[in-house]
């Protein structure tokens, strides 16, 4: 499988929107081996395509799972991705000081990417993937969950 992975954080000056945007290690898209990418997907320095041998399609697609809003709060901000790939563990650096991206492609085996952890996931993936901490809405403070200002 091929994973299109963000290697640098996408940031917003808006603190709530910043929580939603994808961050380093988030998988943007997945494709089968041999499928082609678009020009921008190949050239954008904020992404890298990682080939992962022996990774089942279902496990790759699970990496696209979004964070779900808390029960009863469907309008709460949530991150686009519930999991991330630990790029540091794979030795994939972010852009260097000159903005030079890492090599456009890198190949790993599933066993390098995934280490069993048995956590309660919808699909028994996971590995050098990890579940991210839940997004905390900055407009909500205190245990009551009361919202400050308009939502």
């Amino acid at each position, binding site marked *: 499988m091929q994973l299109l992975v963000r290697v640098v954080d996408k940031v*917003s000056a*808006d603190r709530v*929107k910043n929580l939603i945007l994808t961050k380093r290690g988030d998988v*943007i898209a997945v494709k089968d081996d041999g499928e082609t990418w*678009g*020009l921008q997907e190949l050239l954008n320095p904020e*992404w890298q395509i990682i080939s992962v041998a022996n990774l089942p399609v279902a496990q790759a697609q699970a990496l696209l799972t*979004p964070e*779900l809003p808390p029960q009863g709060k469907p*309008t709460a901000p949530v991150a686009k991705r519930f999991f991330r790939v630990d790029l540091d563990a794979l030795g994939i650096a972010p852009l260097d000081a000159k903005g030079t991206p890492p090599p456009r492609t890198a190949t790993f085996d599933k066993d390098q990417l995934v280490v069993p952890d048995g956590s309660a996931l919808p699909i028994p993936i996971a590995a050098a993937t990890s579940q991210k901490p839940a997004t905390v809405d900055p407009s909500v403070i205190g245990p009551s969950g009361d919202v400050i200002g308009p939502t």
Partner: protein
Amino acid sequence: MSTWKIGASNSPVTMDFSTIQAWEDACPADITATGTNEIYIGECYDQGDLAGFTISGTTTDSTHYLWLRTATGASFRDNAGVRTNPLFPDNTKGVYLTASNNYGGVFNITSNYTRLSYLQMVQGGAATAIGFNNGGHIVDSCIVKGASTPILGASTWDFTMINCLLITGNTFGSANGASCGHLFNCTIVDPSAGGITGLLGSNYGATRDHHNCAVFGYGTMVSGTNGGTSDYGATDTSTGVEGAHTLSGLTFSSQFVSSTNDFRAVATGGLKAGTPDPTNAPVDITGQARDATTPYIGVWEVAPTVPTAGHIIFRNEAYV
């Protein structure tokens, strides 16, 4: 304004993005005047089915927004046989987006003012097909089919749907049609005729209103708060009927070419009972001009009958 090509394959046109999600992720974080100051457009090509997506986190406003639409000639409405093809999702006749997730909406729209145009979107999983949050969204001339509820709005804001065909599925049990929003000339149907409610309102504070909309196959036409002045509807049920001039108790199977897989209106039904809306819906889902006096309710305008060639009209006039 920036416009990007999106398609699942690189032939015959080379794409900028092979996935909608990558197009969305490449969007600058702020496209308002304080940022890149643009309308960020993705044009989908009919080169293989595309997958679901989430559009969220971008700073937008009413004149700077994301717009996902079809490229010229790539929509079902551009198909040469659009007036004779069944009005139903078909991935051989235009850009076709599909997903099968069981969580959230598979086409999630959160960035304010996002627009979707001329797409076919089909969800095979249990979740809502399109999930809206925040507001100002406009969906124009799209076909949306869910295995369950096709549209869910969850916000104190709103969205607008114009000339959209919304199809409820019952794969996971009885479901609803649309939740919240302002609907103009839409057709909302459950082909199983076992749907719960056609149009819901008051979902997490949001409301809904409908104008010239056909709602068929549900036990209840609407429920919840009417957020506007709904009018000129048509439905087969007698429960929850709402809006001035709304027709109720019509026979589902008599209004369309097929009540299971072709929702083009027929002239022999009762849908020619709408009111002109030149602002929102001067044409139907295919671009057919609507009758200026009594247009059809729903997405489809039956074309006026053209006199058969060969008739000669003699007029008693003299010319000097």
